[in-house]
């Protein structure tokens, strides 16, 4: 069972990781479409 602090840290990692991960994936895909058109 997670303590109060442990749960907060887990939430921080989950929320930040998922949102930043999605944003990173979107930036990667956008750059790839431009790279393909230039290459």
């Amino acid at each position, binding site marked *: 069972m997670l303590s109060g602090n442990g*749960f*907060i840290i887990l*939430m*921080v990692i*989950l*929320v*930040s990781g998922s*949102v*930043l991960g999605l*944003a990173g994936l*979107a*930036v990667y895909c*956008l*750059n790839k*479409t*431009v790279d393909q*058109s*230039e290459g």
Partner: protein
Amino acid sequence: MHLIPQSWAHWHILVSLLPSVGLFFALCLYGMGLYTDKDIIKRACLIIIALVALATVPTYLSGDHAMTGLAGNPRFAETMMDSHFKWSVAALLFMAVTGIVAWLELVRSWIGRPSENALHLVLGLGLVTLALMMVAGELGWEINHSELRLDPETQKTSQLWSHAHMILNHFPTVGFVIGLGVYVGALILDNIVLKRAGLFLFVVCAILTVPTYVTGNASMWAVTDPVIPGISKAVINTHRDMALLALFGMAFTGVTAWIELWRYRYLGRFSNLSLYLVLAFAVVTFGILAETGHRGGQINHPEIVLPTDVLATDPKLGWTPAIELAINQVTWFVPWQTLHFFGYSLVFGVALVTSLRVLGFCKSMSFAAIHRLLPIGVFGVTMNVFTGMLILQADSSRYLNEITFVPKIIFLTIGALAVLYYSLSERLWAVKAGEDAPMGAKWVAALVLASWTIVIMGGRLLPYL
């Protein structure tokens, strides 16, 4: 929602926005057309100005009938209605003349180029009309909104917020309607310049939604604490729920529109799939905006509420009260605040690198190479708009009354609009490796840096001042 307004007052509230706020957007786009010397934009704006001028007829008629219908109602002072009427007639006459000149120039120059003198005449008349519309609009709002005249000493949250929201909320909505019109016209004509103009308007409206949402939050406190008779927090909450959806819709439309503008720079063409995706988002968002506006009107316009309308009575129902409760839990507040700080790091990092290149650093890179980084900054802004709105709900009454909150929101809007210049300027795009950026671009870069610095400082000082 009544698809067709059931009273003259309701009609007047709706159609009067076209010759006022509609004219503002038409003139902004027109100014850009004149500055960039794009004939298609100038012609499109002449058509918009002429159409906006046609709206003077229903505006006058609905206003006249509304005055007759409301005469004798103690809520509406006759002297105020008379004063609004006189200024409105002057504004509508100028609008009609501006529209006629725009039509004449459009017809005269159908084959060939429009005349510079006539174009400047339309601009001059339009600006005078806009000034008259501002006075008429202000007098019109004062007829119904008696809360604006409350003694500031008795108010915990200034009524300036309500006043600002009352004006500001019409900009993303009416601007969006004009943007949708330009965009659909562009898709039908398959014209690249108009497509870019439509996408640009969507992004501008999405940016303007942020201060609109914030002023709306503050207005809620201004009109409910202390309580103003006739204004219900439950009705406000139904409007807030829809406004939250509108914020999402605007963000989806604005970000996808901006991505298309960004990609166009590299590909030199638009993807049809993306263009129609933007259109789909825009159409859905338009529906949400209409419902948001309608619910907003029900808050303080008893004259448009029908006996058959069922208004909310429980202020605890809805999504926004539930979000307020959830975000006050530390397990929700801290993760979103952490993400908010990540967002600012992304925004400031990208704004700094891009602006430094424009100002003359790292000249070994072309502007096109640096421009590649912009989506990271745009995702940062989007993240921060949503995390910021969530954090705001935790204690909005306190945040909104802090002295650094207003400059933060003003410069957030300016900073976001200024960054848009990086994806639109032709001269800046042509800056190759080793070349210096134009002087105008350097001023914009300085504005971008200053704006985002103030935004971060304003936010950081919120808990302490």
